[in-house]
């Protein structure tokens, strides 16, 4: 019970500490975006092709862009204080609603990608560690190097060419068969088919990282005294590897996986564009191109909250994996 209480108080403390962090992030982001040339009115006017000074001014008044920067910041923070993310001038709808539509898709894609990356990475890394210095290790090291160095968009395009164009097994883009009203297992399978390629291309880079990290970490643990103890007990190589080596090697891997949630959001922009996946990443990209700063600020705010939440979760996971780390 007391450990549950400790977890509760630890989460509460994280939440309280998150408030100033988030405010700082919002203000920083706001000024960073102000430095970008142009605003939403410029882009809309440019797309319309025939805007006058008056209509531009009218647009700015309508979006609240005519105020001085500090007033705009005040207005935005005021909106946030009332739990509103503002209104998108470009999409003509509340930002929260816009993000709400896109968020589940991205979260699904990201968690699938992270799951794939961790699973394959751990398996490959374990194989590499067990056969360290021998042929399987060498071959997998080269493979990991390829995954690590090839950019995500290129892998995405190649996967499309192979699996969609040449073999015709998987769809090349989108998030579901249009018009098909599937439910149950058929619906799930349909969704999965659309997710395999984007999730894989997002995951491959991280597969390489986790495989190499698992290898290094397992080799380090392998030289520890308690592994010798385990072997002296007469345990089988499998149970020595899983219960003693891999179990301890997981600790640094979870730390890194937690840190990768943030950078995966960045990777999602590219992959979602390549696979025309209707996610947050593509929304962010469109918002940048349309100078729709309210949407962008909302997305950035949300991702910082996500990173903070994931960090808290990883901290708790660490205390579970390593009893020497106490919940504070």
């Amino acid at each position: 019970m007391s450990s549950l209480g400790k977890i509760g108080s630890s989460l509460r403390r994280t939440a309280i500490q998150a408030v100033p962090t988030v405010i700082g992030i919002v203000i920083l982001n706001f000024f960073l975006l102000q430095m970008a040339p142009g605003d939403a009115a410029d882009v809309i006017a440019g797309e319309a092709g025939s805007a006058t000074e008056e209509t531009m001014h009218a647009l700015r008044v309508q979006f609240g862009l005519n105020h001085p920067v500090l007033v705009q910041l005040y207005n935005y923070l005021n909106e946030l204080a009332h739990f509103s993310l503002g209104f998108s001038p470009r999409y003509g709808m509340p930002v929260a609603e816009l993000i709400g539509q896109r968020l589940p898709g991205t979260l699904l894609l990201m968690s699938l990608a992270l799951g794939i990356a961790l699973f394959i990475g751990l398996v490959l890394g374990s194989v590499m560690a067990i056969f360290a210095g021998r042929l399987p290790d060498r071959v997998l090291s080269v493979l990991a190097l390829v995954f690590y160095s090839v950019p995500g968009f290129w892998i995405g395009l190649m996967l499309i060419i192979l699996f969609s164009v040449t073999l015709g097994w998987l769809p090349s883009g989108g998030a579901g068969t249009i018009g098909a009203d599937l439910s149950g297992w058929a619906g799930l399978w349909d969704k999965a088919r659309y997710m395999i390629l984007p999730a894989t291309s997002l995951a491959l880079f991280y597969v390489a990282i986790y495989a190499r990290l698992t290898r290094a970490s397992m080799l380090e643990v392998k030289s520890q005294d308690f592994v010798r103890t385990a072997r002296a007990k007469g345990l089988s190589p499998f149970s020595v590897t899983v219960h003693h080596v891999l179990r301890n090697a997981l600790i640094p891997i979870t730390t890194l996986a937690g840190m990768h949630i943030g950078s995966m959001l960045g990777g999602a922009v590219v992959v979602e564009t390549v696979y025309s996946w209707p996610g947050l990443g593509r929304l962010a990209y469109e918002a940048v191109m349309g100078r729709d700063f309210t949407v962008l600020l909302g997305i950035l705010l949300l991702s910082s909250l996500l990173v903070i939440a994931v960090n808290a979760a990883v901290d708790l996971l660490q205390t579970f994996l390593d009893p020497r780390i106490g919940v504070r």
Partner: protein
Amino acid sequence: MAQTEQPVLDVRNLRLRFPGPGGETTAVSGLSFSVRPGEAVALVGESGCGKSSTALAIMQLLPDTAKLGGEIRVDGRDVIGLPRKELRALRGSKVAMIFQEPMTSLNPVHRVGEQIVEALRAHKPLSREDARERALALLEQVRIPDAQQRLDAYPHQLSGGQRQRVMIAMAIACEPRLLIADEPTTALDATIQAQILQLLDDLRRELNMGLLLITHDLALVSRWTENVVVMHHGEKMEQLAAADLFGRAHHPYTRGLIGASIRLDRSQHYRTQRLPEIRVVHNADDTYEFLLEKREPIRLPPPDRGGAPVVEVHNLAVRYDTPRGPFTAVDDVSLAIAPGETLGLVGESGSGKSTLSKAIMRLVPAHSGRIVFRGEDITRIEGKNLRRVRRNMQMVFQDPYGSLNPRHTVGEILEGPLAVHEVNDARERQKRVQRMLDQVGLPARSANRLPHEFSGGQRQRIGIARALMLNPSLVVCDEPVSALDVSVQSQILNLLVELKESLNLSYLFISHDLAVVQYISDRVIVMKDAKVVEENDHLRIWTHPRHDYTRALISAAAREA
């Protein structure tokens, strides 16, 4: 009855070689000995003599590259070349092993109960519940208090002694015929050491199991084993009954080891007697000669107790903030060291002796009290003033491996303090480095080499040289010989005495080894639970101990010897 007399371990003409980049190195050659049921045999020697490799060879835990020859019969079966599966059935059930470091030999992320259960279930068809019950009985058998609760503890929640007990419980879980204990008490405090050895002794009689004790400590061997095998450079020097070790050893190496080791009951002291050193001569035809060199005592002036002390500590307290509130590591400690005096500081781990030395060096802040160094209150000084004082007080550390930067040459390590303390002339710095290397008995060309090229004893010489570069008046030696072999220990202690004479030093000498403290100290203080419990001169503290704790320490050390 004839069957019980069959040895549980029979090693015949064991040869062990490791291939390396510079050709093969021989770890063990032509070693033969045996252990009968219920018998305790000691494998004795200094680091690198092949004793631990022999133990790992018996368990077949050596790396795959090791080349083994000869026979190792465990309970009648030769383990060399045995298929892996049969080896696994043997390990942990017929032969078990405990290791030197109880801190790292248990998996930190599993509860100790689970780890014992795992050992049981690897060899016996037990249900989880039955295995757990048996694990509890084992913890009680190795006399762990609150065994029921300890079952669910993680290793880091146990003390070093308790962890070693858990290791023993795990090792005897399947009632092995042979237990190998590789330096089982080296990392433990004296009082705990005696308890663990007593436990091992009781268990081998109870379970009628052979015990192979691997150690560098001769005093321990004569008390706890029946037969001794003395090893050097992978060969057996001699084998004799443990009772004969101190009286009737024939081999010059054994006699050298005995001569070089310090024993509490001999009351040796550095002012009247120097320690004999073993000289090992490696001849061109690959034979060895062993010589015991005796040295004349150095006449040292007595400590100047009338003058101002080098350092005085008044009512010092040091506190650490921990998540569970403030922890007092040093509590109301007062002491003084006279010029030319060596103050011995004895205590077990956690008694606060290292914290006290760091507080005197101003490496941790004092909570209250005063530190006066050569008449100046240094308790709160900072910056330039602190640096000025620091050159006069230096420290020698325990671990000759971890305390030297592996990427700096010895010359750079020794020049470091000079550069910091503004000796700007490079040629002058090099001259001083050469002079110091000569004083600590290292060849002049050492300056261009890296620490890993030196042996443990040589590294400790480098550590001492670094401490002395700035001509300090006080040197704090924190367990300077604990990590060293007996023969190297006597060399380093002799060196400390020589340097004391030539450089007029005062020492604060911290150790858990009573015999070493008795030899090197003029006065001794005993610390327990952050407090000084006793202080006396080097003779009376052993002959007339007043505090119960001092008595317990002495009797633990005497029991071992």
